[in-house]
């Protein structure tokens, strides 16, 4: 936590870096603020790219490999941009008992992607989660943040097929920058 250390300049003009900086400042730029900081990068930009990891490492004075090791350990962090829509299938025990696997299979068949992947056109990301806390509504699916319960595969696919597209690129979908 040396006060002397010069902080690296912000990677670019993007205002969202200020949010990231605020998190680090609140934690006194201590090395243990790494996970909090990665959360704030992901909240601001939607994912962690190389530029942001370099910036965080330099700001907190941490080795690059350590930052990368932490970013890849935790499943909530993603190093790839997400699709414009997201569909999270809950695979907690209650949902599993009530057929979450069939939903995952159905999505694989329809969109040719596995959980954790995004369709090539960037339209949809399919994810799984360990218990979204809607066990009473099992099997539960979260589409763009909205929890939907007791869906079967045809219902789900119909909902996903009717999601609006194309739409303006949302804030969380920053094109990956390569400058560093």
């Amino acid at each position: 936590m040396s006060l002397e250390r010069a902080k690296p300049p912000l990677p670019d003009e993007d205002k969202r870096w200020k949010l990231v900086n605020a998190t680090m400042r609140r934690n006194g730029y201590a090395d243990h603020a790494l996970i909090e900081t990665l959360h704030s990068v992901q909240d601001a930009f939607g994912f962690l790219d190389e530029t942001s990891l370099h910036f965080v490492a330099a700001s907190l004075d941490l080795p690059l490999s350590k930052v990368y090791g932490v970013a890849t350990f935790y499943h909530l962090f993603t190093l790839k941009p997400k699709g414009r829509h997201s569909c999270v299938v809950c695979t907690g025990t209650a949902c599993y008992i009530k057929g979450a696997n069939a939903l995952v299979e159905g999505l694989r068949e329809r969109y040719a992607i596995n959980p954790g992947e995004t369709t090539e056109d960037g339209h949809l990301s399919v994810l799984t989660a360990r218990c979204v806390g809607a066990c009473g509504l099992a099997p539960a699916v979260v589409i763009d943040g909205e929890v939907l319960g007791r869906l079967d595969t045809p219902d789900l696919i119909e909902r996903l097929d009717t999601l609006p597209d194309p739409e303006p690129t949302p804030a969380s979908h920053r094109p990956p920058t390569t400058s560093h």
Partner: protein
Amino acid sequence: MPPATPQPNVRVVTLRIDGRDVSAREDETILEVCRENRIEVPSLCQLDGLSVWGGCRLCMVELAGQGRLFAACATRVAEGMEVSTNTERLRHYRRLILELLFAERNHVCSVCVSNGHCELQALAQRCGVDHVRLPYRQARYPVDSSHEMFRLDHNRCVLCTRCVRVCDEIEGAHTWDVMGRGSDCLVITDMAQPWGASGTCTSCGKCVQVCPTGALVKQGTSVGEMVKDQHFLPILARRRHLA
């Protein structure tokens, strides 16, 4: 466990290991005391001079009166302790753990530059692993030859993190770390870029010397030629200890 700091008054304790009475400083680990007394306990992730990791689980021993097993490298001795290091149960577990390691990646000894000088191979011979009953995981990993002096072959890595620890604790570069989770863990340099492109690697080669297998080797060695030299470690360890 924090690195042992020299204490002004460390007590000396006596304990029994495999039926032999031995004495030890109370800040020593069971494994250290075994080594002093030439009692061989298999180990892979532990290396004198580096911090304790406790990941390979080959050094598990039995303690009288305790239901569970203990990792000798991570357990301090205590007065009156009764340790068994070589029971049938422990030998059985060690064989299985080694089999798990062989099946996890791809260790083809006959074409490895470390053939004959590999700790994994030596352990397998010592513990009597002559064949692997478990199915192979069959995951293929890349080989990184981008560094002008060294080469990294993930297929021969046992994830002992010796390279990570020596680079951080002795060389102070922290070029290495581990990414991912579970069997998909990989050792990485910087941001998982090619080793040759690393901006922090000092090319000191310590990671290569401490790597127990043929995962980290010198470029240009051929089958069976890669002999590792870890003499710098105990010396450095002692110096650090005294500092």
